[in-house]
């Protein structure tokens, strides 16, 4: 058995609101091996970003429930004190390329100083050594080292995104989490960034969690697909299985709604809306919109592990 890089068990994250608890992450279980690229796919509001917040302990103030375990190699990071987590784990072992990365750079600090900052803050390197390493990761992501002394506004969108990726890689973390890394970029720039990420995966055996609502882009960088719906994981399968023949009815419908350029197919959409996470249905959360619903769906299905390695949360695969 391969060594597990990350094991997430029974992870819950609820937010407190004036109308009750929002069950954004509701009992999530998954694990990933080293050198694995995991694509977390789901529509807006399904809990993808909350899952990342839960793993990286980037919690807002209105947390209602936060429990479960997140084990990174041998460390249960949920048990660490905030101080230890901050100094030893966050950014050093798990880093984040955030959504809206275009605005994630500080406009009044030189790009090089920002990219090398994690080394100075987390590992106590001198500024000079940190900058030397920043130059190294800049070469890795394909930005000229001349830009180290520039400011964010002097960089194009694609270069800014590369700088953010460089910042996430500089501490040589075991896991890099990409939260919609390309959704604000143009097509060619997007393809370029994906090339960079593929290169890093190939050359450094970097592990990634890649979160997005854009199914087609995830296929560029994933070994496995994790589908989320209304705070739950509903399917985990290998990339082959997922992109060619998804099993969960929601995954199937989602795939059928993705327009394809090379072949013409009949596009479908899923009628209705995802349920409110304030008060989700007791049975299967997708049942209301499901084309294959039957009596069993009144009860919540467990995650069924199939022989071919898939996991599907649907009574059809009992």
């Amino acid at each position, binding site marked *: 058995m391969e060594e597990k890089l990350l094991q997430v068990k029974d992870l819950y994250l609820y937010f407190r609101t004036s109308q009750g608890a929002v069950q954004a992450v509701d009992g999530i279980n998954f694990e990933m091996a080293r050198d694995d690229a995991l694509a977390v796919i789901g529509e807006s509001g399904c809990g993808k970003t909350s899952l990342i917040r839960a793993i990286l302990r980037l919690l807002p103030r209105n947390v209602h429930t936060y429990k479960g375990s997140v084990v990174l190699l041998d460390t249960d990071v949920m048990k660490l004190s905030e101080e230890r987590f901050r100094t030893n784990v966050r950014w050093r072992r798990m880093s984040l390329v955030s959504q809206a990365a275009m605005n994630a750079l500080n406009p009044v600090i030189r790009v090089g100083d920002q990219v090398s900052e994690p080394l100075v803050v987390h590992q106590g390197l001198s500024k000079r050594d940190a900058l030397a390493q920043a130059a190294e990761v800049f070469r890795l992501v394909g930005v000229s080292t001349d830009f180290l002394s520039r400011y964010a506004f002097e960089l*194009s969108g694609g270069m800014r995104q590369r700088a953010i990726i460089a910042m996430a890689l500089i501490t040589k973390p075991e896991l890099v989490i990409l939260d919609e890394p390309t959704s604000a970029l143009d097509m060619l*720039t997007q393809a370029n960034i*994906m090339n960079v990420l593929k290169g890093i995966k190939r050359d450094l055996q970097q592990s990634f969690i890649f979160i997005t*609502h854009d199914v087609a882009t995830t296929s560029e960088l994933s070994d496995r697909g994790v589908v989320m719906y209304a705070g739950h994981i509903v399917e985990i399968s290998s990339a082959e299985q997922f992109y060619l023949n998804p099993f969960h009815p929601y995954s199937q419908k989602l795939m059928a709604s993705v*327009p*394809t350029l*090379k072949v013409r197919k009949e596009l479908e*959409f899923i009628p209705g809306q995802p349920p409110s996470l304030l008060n989700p249905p007791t049975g299967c959360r997708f049942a209301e919109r499901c084309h294959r619903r039957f009596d069993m769906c009144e009860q919540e299905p467990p995650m069924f592990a199939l022989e071919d390695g898939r996991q599907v949360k649907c009574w059809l695969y009992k």
Partner: protein
Amino acid sequence: MQTQTLDTQNQPILEVNDLRQWFELRKFVFARAGYVRAVDGVSFRLPRGEALALVGESGSGKTTLARTILGLYKPTAGDVIFEGLSLSKLKHRKMREYRSNLGYVQQDPYGALPPFMSLRGILTEPMKINGIRDKAEQDRRIREVFEEVKLTPVDNYITKFPHMLSGGQQQRVVIARAMILRPKLIAADEPVSMLDASVRVEILRLLRRIQEEHNLAVIYITHDLSTVRYFSERIFIMYAAKTVEKAPVESLLEHHFHPYTQALLAAIPDPDPENAKRFRDIPPGEPPSLVNPPSGCRFHPRCPQSIDGLCEVDEPPEFEPLPGHTVECWLYK
């Protein structure tokens, strides 16, 4: 007699002739510092009932082109002719009448709807401005467009405010507002790029149905080439303020002539596990500045097939390698 009816049928609803839209840049308030050439020599004819897709990267001029056609900017040069009427000659009142023939579907539905107005208010506004003052008529029209965009039962929605709706529903309201004056042409600027995959298909299908039922001409602006195949007849690829390739959709997907179009098509992934195993061939660099665009062909600095001594010197005219399929590239001389 017969031929005459045919002629009016074939007459394009919209004609754009060598349209240029330059925005002046100023330095120290007065001194002229040059122009941003957002649209620089675009010509086409749009027949009634046809959906035309404008595809390009941000800053390629697609939104400016649409906004000029909508009469929101005064063209720097060239002309827009709508049903035989030249836009540059229209004065204030006539301009309002002209605009009532056009609907605009904006990109970000939440940003496009005033947050303090109920849906009834939002839909009544364009009618008030365009002289439909009869309350019963207003109400009848609102019901009609709400039925059309499937915001039913109508009474449940009419008193709501934009923030009470989901993204998909908000976009339906924007479409309803664009339709309320019964326009002949709709410009939809990235109507679905803010929406989730399954909602996206729903809204695009809705637009397509409305288009077919009312025989509308549609200008569909997008950066997402993969949706175009399903929702338009013709496609224009824009690069640096110019339409570098114009073709019927199927023709373009089969033969992509311009090296930029080729690069675009190569960059777009279909969901396929094989994608992770190969790198994509992407031209280096970024789109040029529109203040000082490159000489000759604007794509030549990034073009892998650039011809020395030609592409950087002379701007390529339009060539027609296939009937109805034109391309601005010297390779097809």
